[in-house]
């Protein structure tokens, strides 16, 4: 029954996780679709630190459940654990098919080597002190699995859907991670290869979450234990154990390594089951003291309270680190420079805050309908490796969309209402008229303004100068009248040069020109009001000028709030009753 419950739960978690990461139809994310991402340990820890209420509840529940049941997270909820369980099951199925008895090296008791995992835990804790969540991105089992789903499963599902429908339902995003897939895949495959070899060895040596939860499950209230009075030492439980933590010689289960898969219970025909035990009784005396204290203490490395204390101390370090970082890393820039190397998603408040909370799981990247969110290599710097940034050559941030902020399981992107999102200034556009087609080619374009959702960018009718050198007598009248000093006579004096970056299309030059060498065309020219700009990047994405676009986006370190343009209702320019033709 215990094992059955575990399998049902793991199946549900696996299904919902895969579902959440596939996202073929770009639907607005419903809460249930992203439920399992929110009950993960590290995301809940980081979410709690970001002040997200539900994350606190989840973290509280996990912290309370572990001392009661043991490391249930590792088998019921952890996606990397579930993936390892699938591999272990496959291995067993293969052994069974080959007629091999499962008595290989994978299925025996191994004495604990706790120093490895506590070293990892301390390293991660200290590392996060210096890097925020940067190091957590590399070790969090959820994020390792999630990135694989985002990088490999998501495009694979798109390929499959296209094949089934026999049309291009959605373009598979293999290029999103590109060569990084080697790394992403390797990080995911390492635990699985280890699992094939030695069961849940990854969880008990390299995983800091496993180490941390192991500290909390030193003496769970409900504990798997064998009754020496009924046990016949058939070792069925030992063979079934994925964590190699059943010490049959001493009738002991190392609960710090047990991942609560309950396979041993299903395997045992002689009374192995979870028992409610007195938490204050000495380990090994659950069954009326039938075990000798001597045997126990020889094998229990966890018996000193000093170690537990040190472990808990290690756990509190990343907590302190992450909480203290954003404040320290986002001072108001003294020189007024609020730019960042790359743009972070709306809701992340500031780039440094974002980088210190995000674990780079890639969920927002798969949820983003326009694919503007891409995993960074070094765009954010070292601490932003694999974390999302807005790549305005790939797309632009959809004005009416809040997908990334509603799916983020760690609170790195805080939830935004649609109205808030529409004002959140994540970057600023700048207009470089010297590259603009309207000025350069003297033809209308409007690609940028048609995409601008806030009308920070609009077009007004301007008089763009057109110069015909053949008619020019180099009298200099246009040069003198230009209010922007955009016109100059060439050093040789043969013709006039126009600095398009300075020109405001006022048309004065063409009015004074006596020969018609300087004429002007009435064209719709772009004008930018930065107060209204939210930095969605639509203008830059749409700008057809290459290689350098006429619209450029400057990422903001601290996000701002844009003003909203309110206009009176438009008035019908012609009669509403009669046709004007």
């Amino acid at each position, binding site marked *: 029954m215990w094992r059955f419950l575990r399998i049902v739960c793991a199946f549900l978690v696996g299904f919902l996780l895969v579902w959440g990461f596939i996202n073929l139809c770009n639907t607005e994310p419903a809460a249930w679709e992203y439920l399992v991402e929110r009950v993960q340990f590290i995301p809940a820890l980081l979410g709690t630190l970001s002040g997200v209420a539900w994350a606190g509840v989840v973290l509280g529940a996990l912290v309370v459940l572990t001392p009661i049941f043991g490391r249930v997270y590792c088998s019921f909820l952890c996606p990397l654990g579930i993936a390892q369980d699938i591999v272990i099951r496959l291995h067993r199925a293969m052994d069974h098919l080959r007629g091999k008895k499962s008595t290989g090296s994978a299925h025996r008791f191994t004495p604990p080597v706790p120093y490895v995992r506590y070293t990892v835990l301390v390293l991660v804790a200290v590392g996060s002190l210096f890097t925020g969540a940067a190091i957590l991105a590399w070790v969090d089992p959820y994020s390792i699995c999630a990135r694989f789903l985002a990088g490999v499963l998501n495009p694979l599902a798109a390929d499959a859907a296209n094949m089934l429908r026999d049309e291009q339902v959605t373009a598979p995003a293999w290029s999103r991670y590109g060569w990084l897939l080697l790394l992403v895949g390797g990080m995911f495959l390492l635990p699985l290869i280890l699992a094939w070899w030695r069961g849940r060895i990854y969880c008990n040596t390299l995983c800091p979450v496993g180490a941390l939860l192991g500290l909390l499950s030193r003496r769970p209230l409900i504990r798997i234990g064998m009754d020496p009075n009924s046990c016949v030492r058939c070792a069925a439980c030992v063979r079934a154990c994925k964590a190699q933590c059943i010490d049959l010689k001493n009738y002991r289960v190392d609960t710090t390594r047990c991942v609560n898969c309950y396979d041993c219970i299903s395997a045992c025909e002689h009374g192995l089951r979870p028992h409610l035990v007195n938490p204050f009784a000495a380990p090994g005396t659950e069954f009326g003291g039938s075990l000798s204290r001597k045997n126990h203490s020889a094998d229990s490395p966890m018996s000193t309270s000093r170690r537990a204390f040190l472990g808990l101390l290690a756990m509190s370090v990343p907590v302190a680190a992450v909480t203290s970082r954003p404040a320290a890393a986002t001072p108001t820039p003294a020189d007024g420079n609020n730019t960042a190397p790359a743009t972070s998603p709306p809701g992340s408040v500031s780039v440094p805050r974002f980088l210190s909370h995000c674990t780079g799981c890639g969920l927002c990247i798969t949820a983003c309908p326009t694919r503007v969110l891409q995993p960074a290599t070094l765009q954010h710097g070292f601490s932003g490796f694999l974390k999302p940034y807005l790549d305005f050559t790939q797309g632009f941030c959809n004005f009416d969309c809040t997908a990334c902020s509603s799916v983020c399981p760690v609170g790195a992107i805080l939830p935004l209402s649609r109205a808030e999102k529409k004002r959140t200034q994540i970057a600023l556009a700048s207009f470089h008229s010297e590259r603009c087609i309207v000025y350069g080619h003297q033809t209308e374009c409007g690609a940028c303004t048609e995409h601008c959702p*806030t009308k920070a960018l609009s077009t007004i009718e301007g008089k763009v100068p057109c110069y015909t050198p053949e008619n020019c007598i180099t009298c200099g009248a246009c040069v003198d009248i230009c209010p922007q000093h955009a016109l100059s006579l060439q050093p040789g004096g043969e013709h006039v040069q126009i600095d398009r970056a300075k020109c405001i299309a006022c048309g004065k030059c063409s009015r004074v020109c006596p020969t018609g060498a300087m004429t002007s065309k009435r064209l719709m020219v772009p004008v930018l009001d930065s107060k209204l700009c939210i930095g969605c990047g639509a203008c830059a994405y749409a700008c057809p000028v290459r290689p350098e676009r006429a619209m450029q986006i400057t990422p903001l370190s601290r996000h701002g709030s844009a003003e909203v343009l309110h206009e009176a209702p438009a008035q019908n320019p012609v009669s509403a009753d009669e*046709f004007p033709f």
Partner: protein
Amino acid sequence: MQRRDFIKLGFAVGAGFSLDTLSGLFPVANAEESAVPTEKYPLVAVRGNDRVAMLSAALTALGSGGGMSAFVKPGQSVVIKPNCAWDKGPEMSANTHPSLVGHMVKLCKQAGASKVLVFDHSCDDWQRTYRNSGIQAAVEAAGGEMISGADESMYRDHDNPGARNLKRAKVHSAILDSDVFINMPVLKNHGGARMTACMKNAMGIVWNRGYFHSHDLHQCIADSILLRKPDLNVLDAFAPMLRNGPKGKDENDLIQTHALLAGKDIVAIDAAAAKLLGYADGEVRHIDLAASMGLGEKDLSKTWIRRISVA
């Protein structure tokens, strides 16, 4: 046959053809008397308070009473190209109203179309746009098929020898392969092209729109009509966006025109549409360019216009 009888017959056939269009057929007033047969009208302008009824009335007038059967023969495949470019709701008039597109699909199916495809090369994410514009739901409810325009694999190279700038373009296969092409845009202001109506809507049948912008937008718009001339144009001018187009900012950008234009002459429709938005002659350059290329008549005084009012 007297003209009056002719119109009456048209209404009778139209009514029998589609019962739900009845409301749009009877209260017809102000029908201008004219000497030419109805089907010769290059342009029909309808006023009313219900888009679907206005569409029915326009098609009845254009189709010599036969409605859509004048444009779609049984067994023919139809592609409808609405303006479905922006992730905005129907109340924003940024896309063709879903009720019009849905009704057009239904009429095509009733006329015996083998299949009715609908697509646009959306500017915003296409899946969100199809969904939030309401067009996908309306099309699928009416038995049409909403297909993607978001992938280059759907477009084929197509020569355009008559063009001045756009000599070659990648055109959506549905446009090239369907028997009937119905152009069904919404009337809006446009920051670059000044106005978007029937001609500008054809930009969405092409893959590389960036080429338009960088090679004289107005000329490319006129050229794009030659890629495939629409068999029928229907322009939703019920609540056009007067400013901040073509995406629009809020409902304050809209004016209540309560009009619908339809016809075969794409230049005449756009010339009339420009007047609805208050543009002077010559202000929307692609209209003049298209007229100079012989694609239609921009001078409305030389055009037979059938004006209908549907109460």
